């Protein structure tokens, strides 16, 4: 049996004696007999470290990790530099608690302050929080920020990630607020439909940029319509794309959120991921979650603290706008580290290459008989092709250790290419598709 309890059986007996007790049952004397478990749980015995290692490794061996990943849809296989895996594993960063005691946690607080700064730089916004759970819950929290006594309806683009839409729907269900999904036309938010849906009750409109199908939306035009109706404009953005794409701030957004996973976090079968949230100064006090601020100490030294805590649940309790108590601190540290290692040039390069390689693959696939782009218009690093024999294609790709695009609709595949994929890998994928279609 494995155990992390350092005290020996003899020490435990002695400690019980100092308490005037002689058994574990006495220690738990407040637990009524009808619920005190006298025997063991119906679970296997514990294991030594070597046995556990074998057991869990055996589970991992049942997974397939593809050599080439051409699927995105909210989880991206970007290249993670070696040092970005190494540093977050340092025991202090890994095992520390939330930095409530500022004097003992300056390193952690500073790393978050640096992260907040970088998110502001990426998005063009004035203020960022210390992160929330993921991009979907960030979208829901942003929608909540925008509501006031008069305006409570949330509009969301139907071209956003289905999990984002459903998460916002869930949070709206909780507070009893209305969510309306704006229809999609030709793969993008229908601006006429949006205009028809905006009214004096609209609190905010959320658009994903680029959207779920990889297409660039006309964010500025959408944002203008939203502001004309007196509502707030929320953009969900892809952080790598912000290396080269117009900032949400320049597009007129009031709040920018998104999934930070591409910034150095592994795919990890869905998590942990990272929700970033940034906004204009006027909305600063509505931002949920932790925020790190700069100040000085009693000797005038620069110091960092968790600040603006009066927004949060431990102070406002039922009047807090969100119950969020934590952030994804280690993930935020990782993201800040990734952005530091990549720098502005590296990030732009990752974005440019992702886009270039996606266009290259799209070109190669659409040159094949029966394959066509589902939508026109500019796209970033994801795109949908319509093609026949979808399952056969995915199967053939799988045999070559390639995870192909995500099946969408009746005959579509949503492909994604990141900077990590080489030309040779793309040529191989295209060749396989060609072969299947030629049969």
């Amino acid at each position, binding site marked *: 049996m494995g155990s992390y309890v350092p005290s020996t059986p003899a020490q435990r007996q002695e400690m019980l004696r100092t308490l005037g007790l002689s058994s574990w049952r006495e220690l738990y004397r407040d637990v009524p007999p009808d619920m005190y478990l006298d025997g063991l749980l119906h679970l296997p015995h514990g294991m030594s470290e070597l046995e556990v290692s074998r057991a869990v490794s055996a589970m991992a061996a049942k997974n397939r990790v593809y050599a080439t990943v051409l699927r995105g849809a909210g989880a991206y296989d970007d290249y993670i530099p070696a040092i970005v895996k190494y540093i977050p594993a340092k025991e202090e960063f890994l095992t520390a608690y939330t930095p409530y005691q500022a004097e003992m946690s300056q390193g952690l607080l500073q790393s978050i302050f640096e992260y907040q700064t970088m998110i502001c730089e990426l998005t063009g916004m004035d203020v960022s929080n210390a992160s929330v759970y993921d991009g979907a819950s960030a979208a829901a929290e942003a929608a909540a920020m925008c509501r006031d006594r008069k305006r409570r309806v949330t509009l969301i683009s139907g071209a956003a990630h289905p999990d984002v839409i459903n998460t916002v729907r869930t949070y709206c269900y909780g507070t009893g607020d209305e969510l309306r999904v704006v229809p999609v036309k030709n793969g993008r938010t229908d601006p006429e439909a949006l205009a028809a849906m905006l009214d004096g009750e609209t609190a905010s409109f959320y658009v994903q940029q680029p959207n779920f199908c990889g297409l660039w939306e006309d964010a500025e035009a959408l944002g203008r319509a939203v502001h004309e109706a007196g509502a707030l404009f929320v953009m969900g953005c892809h952080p790598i794309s912000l290396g080269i794409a117009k900032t949400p701030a320049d597009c007129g957004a009031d709040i920018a959120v998104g999934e930070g996973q591409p910034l150095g976090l592994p795919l990890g079968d869905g998590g942990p991921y990272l929700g970033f949230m940034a906004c204009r100064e006027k909305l600063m*006090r509505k931002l949920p979650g932790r925020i790190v601020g700069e100040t000085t100490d009693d000797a005038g030294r620069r110091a960092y603290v968790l600040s*603006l*805590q*009066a927004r949060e649940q431990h*102070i*406002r309790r039922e*009047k807090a706008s969100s119950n969020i108590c934590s952030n994804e601190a280690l993930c935020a540290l990782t993201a800040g580290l990734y952005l530091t290692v990549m720098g502005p040039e590296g990030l732009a390069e990752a974005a440019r290459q992702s886009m270039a390689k996606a266009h290259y693959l799209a070109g190669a696939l659409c040159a094949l008989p029966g394959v066509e782009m589902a939508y026109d218009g500019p796209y970033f690093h994801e795109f949908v092709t319509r093609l026949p024999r979808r399952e056969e294609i995915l199967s053939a790709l799988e045999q070559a250790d390639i995870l192909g695009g995500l099946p969408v609709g009746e005959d579509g595949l949503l492909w994604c290419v990141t900077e990590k994929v080489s030309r040779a890998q793309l040529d191989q994928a295209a060749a396989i598709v060609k072969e299947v279609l030629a049969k």
Partner: protein
Amino acid sequence: MLYPDDRMYSKSHEWVKTDGATAVIGISDYAQDALGDVVFVNLPGEGDEVSMGEAFGDVESVKAVSDLISPVSGTVSAVNEELLDAPENLNKDPYDNWIIKVDDPTGTEELLSAADYEAFCASEG
């Protein structure tokens, strides 16, 4: 602790100066002392309705939030936006820094005189 007698007070520690048409409202010295360093004031908007006995905003210190309870009913005609940039003014001079002005105030019969309010504060201990 100061209790200027040129105005009335509520049991929730707000002061009111009124000429009948408009009530000017702030917090008392007792209140600012109990709150500690004020870091932010959440103000209502002009045109908002306020009700006697109900919260019209709140005051944040580093570790706590306290509701501002309206001592009268009426419509907010002005808010002191200076407090947004300088919330510490409520600590420095609570009687010179008003928070909101309310038109057509009702409910002023419930207010305490400076002397009664001072006695009330003493009994709160």
